[in-house]
């Protein structure tokens, strides 16, 4: 029998139907990656499980009971499901160790001493035991999230729900949290994790739910969904995540859109933040010279393509633009400092020209 069975789950917000009838099984030991474009209900799915949102219709069966039955003790169900939030939600008035031990004392009726010892074991596991007596506002984002994970684990949940646990973190902190989650996945704990980090999702999960169109659009073993998606939207989603395209023209150019796009691209592919920053810097320098300060009479339109080369752990940026042969890196009109920055931050660069089309390829 499945550990959790979702049947015909429906949910709408002010007339907007998020779920038109979701069916799913969660087996003991599953690590399920919940992925999909934003606004498709990934968070809502987790939140319906532990009553943070009220489902409109449907059933969720757990331990032979429909948890929506009025006879079911909802608090008890919540205790069996740990939740890790994007924004940590640690209790600011309690020390780290108190954050972890409070709920077991209040809800499981164990002694303070026992709770403390258990909390210290958990903090050790997430690498936070040396901060046991700190307060949340004294911790970095990554540290807070590790404490939040320990807090959820302290209730000995049967399943852990994680809603974008690394999205609110500085790129530098993501790794430490992912390591903790990966270890938990290995330990056999049942988990459902919403994440935008595709390679991380692929690495730790055995099953993937792709959410779209009011429900679970495609579902299957992670390797299958990732390497061989069957339905059109899933295919489109994966191809989009593998490359980044940006057309920088005079009218539409916005620094913010471009650099955000590059950051998201970096996150979905779990690319080293330093690498992403460098690529972003190169694109910005090129755009400044070609569009904002006119080195030619008319601004030059750039088409930027970015792809991640996993084996080499490198980013390939190819910039295409029309016109006469014009190697931007050799052009004396291009700002000297810009050229210097680009050359120094890149690993390799090359230039080609054919049929009125310039292609500048930079490897970071």
């Amino acid at each position, binding site marked *: 029998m499945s550990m959790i069975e979702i049947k015909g789950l429906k949910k709408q917000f002010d007339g907007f139907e998020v779920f038109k009838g979701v069916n799913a099984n969660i087996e003991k030991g599953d690590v399920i990656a919940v992925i999909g474009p934003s606004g498709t209900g990934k968070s809502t799915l987790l939140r319906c499980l532990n009553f943070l949102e009220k489902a409109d219709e449907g059933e969720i069966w757990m331990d032979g009971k429909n948890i929506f039955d009025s006879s079911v003790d909802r608090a008890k169900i919540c205790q*069996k499901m740990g*939740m890790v939030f994007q*924004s940590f*939600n640690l*209790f600011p*008035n309690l020390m780290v160790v108190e954050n972890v031990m*409070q709920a077991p004392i*209040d809800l499981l009726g164990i002694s*303070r001493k026992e709770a*403390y010892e258990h909390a210290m074991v958990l903090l050790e596991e997430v690498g936070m035991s040396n901060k046991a007596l700190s307060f949340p506002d004294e911790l970095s984002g990554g540290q807070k999230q590790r404490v939040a994970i320990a807090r959820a684990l302290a209730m000995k949940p049967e399943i852990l729900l994680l809603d974008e646990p690394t999205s609110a973190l500085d790129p530098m902190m993501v790794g430490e949290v992912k390591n903790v989650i990966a270890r938990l996945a290995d330990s056999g704990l049942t988990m459902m994790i919403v994440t935008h980090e595709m390679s991380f999702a692929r690495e730790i999960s055995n099953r993937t739910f792709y959410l779209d169109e009011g429900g679970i659009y495609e579902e299957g073993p992670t390797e299958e969904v990732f390497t061989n998606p069957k339905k059109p939207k899933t295919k489109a989603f994966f191809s989009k995540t593998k490359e980044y395209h940006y057309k920088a023209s005079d009218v539409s150019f916005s620094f913010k859109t471009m650099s955000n796009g590059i950051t998201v691209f970096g996150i979905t592919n779990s690319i080293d933040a330093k690498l992403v920053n460098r690529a972003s810097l190169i694109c910005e320098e090129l755009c400044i010279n070609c569009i904002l300060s006119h080195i030619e009479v008319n601004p030059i339109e750039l088409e930027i393509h970015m792809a991640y080369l996993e084996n080499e752990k490198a980013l390939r940026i190819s910039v295409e633009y029309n016109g006469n042969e014009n190697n931007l890196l050799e052009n004396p009109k291009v700002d000297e400092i810009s050229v210097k920055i680009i050359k120094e931050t890149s690993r390799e660069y090359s230039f080609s020209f054919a049929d009125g089309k310039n292609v500048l390829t930079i490897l970071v």
Partner: protein
Amino acid sequence: MNDKRLSIRLLALLFAVLIFSTLFLSSCSGSNDDECTVENLPTGKIGCLMGSLETVFLQDTYPEAEISYYNSLPDAIVGLKSGNVDYVSTTETNIALYTKRIDGIKKLDISYFPTQEAFCLNKNRVDLISQINGKIKEYKESGRIDEISRNWSDCTNYIVNEVPKRTEGPVIVVGTTGEMEPINFILNGELVGFDVEVIGNILYDLGYQVEYKTMAFGALLPAIESGKVDIGAADITVTEERKKSVAFSDVYIERCQSVIVRDEDNESISIAAIKEGLKNNLIKEARYKLILEGLKMTALLSVTSLIFGTILGILLLFMKRSRFRLLSKTVSVYSVIIQGIPIVVLLMLVCYVFLGDVDASDIVVGMLTFGMFFSTGVLAALENGLNNIDKGQYEAVSALGYPRIFGFRKIIFPQLTKNSLPVYRGEIIAMIKATAIAGYVAIQDLTKAGDLIRSRTFDAFIPIIIVAIIYFAIIWAITLFIRWFEKKDDRNRRKREVKL
């Protein structure tokens, strides 16, 4: 202008003639052998005692008159001296005293509008009225009234006779102002004066115990009507208007009105004068004792209101957050009402309406009023604290598996206390300042103590400044204390010790 004067004169004359003819009056006992005649009133702003007869008289005879109402004559004189009014109209008895005591004012040679003074009673106390009337008659015939009047006629040398008191028998509550020298006033911490001596002796003769309550003149009639006070003895003039709400005893004395004005030639300000003023306002007749007692009352009011208001405020918060619409609606309505009426009016409502029939002590009246006032502030502080708690906190509590109320109590509430402290601090100070109006219903707090002193010394500034300084010191000390507490609380919270 002449027209106006003429019509005033005519109307005043008419009024006077009416009174003369109906009451068979021949002379005014207070003023030698002169007859009370109606003269021109000077032009300008008039200061009057609130609810006093001159007010009605002036309104009727001189509708254009600009009248400022004062709670007590000392206040009016302070108003006169500081230029808020141009002259003060009052009885000749008062004027004799005030002009002798206070520099910088003088009597105008005008005498008008005779009045008759009687005791006021609740209309239901007919039995008492006839008993008192009997005694008034007896006192008048035996010349005792005149004798008592003489005792209080020389304000530089009062003859103070101890009024005999009974320790058993039914209790009669006598309401008076305590601010009308020489009719009823505080001397060496004791309530004395002409009225006090008369009514005290009458009630003694009749076998009653007497309990005095001092309050603003304007509050006297409502207090009698509501039964808080049995007899009003404060030089109250008999009028038809007043007869509608209260009953009067027979007349025990008659008086005439006159006016006082500023005497610009006779004013002085110097260091010596200030020194003298301080001595006069604090040391003489042990007046600092009044301040100390007032301070005690203010402290008591503040502390009881603080406790009551805080508990009530927390209760209100739970009611407001409850799932029952009726409860939360009730709280909203309560807040709107309490915040929507002036605190003075709230005080009167509590004193005369809610507790009108109950024999509640001053502390209870004050605690209820200021506690209710404070409770809405506590509610606001708590709600502000709650709003500052992130929604994610509730979600985390719920996701951990806490039942709703239990989780609120265990996790959210401890955060609330810290979040609410800054607003709470402000509300405490606002409440303490609000207690300054307690004197309006005869609660003798710090402000009232200042009033009482002023009523004896007629000093406009020193008592007010002393009171202001004390309030400031209290509030400053409390602010410091709460800041210290906040810091200490913060350090406690950051102790980094796990209780096991």
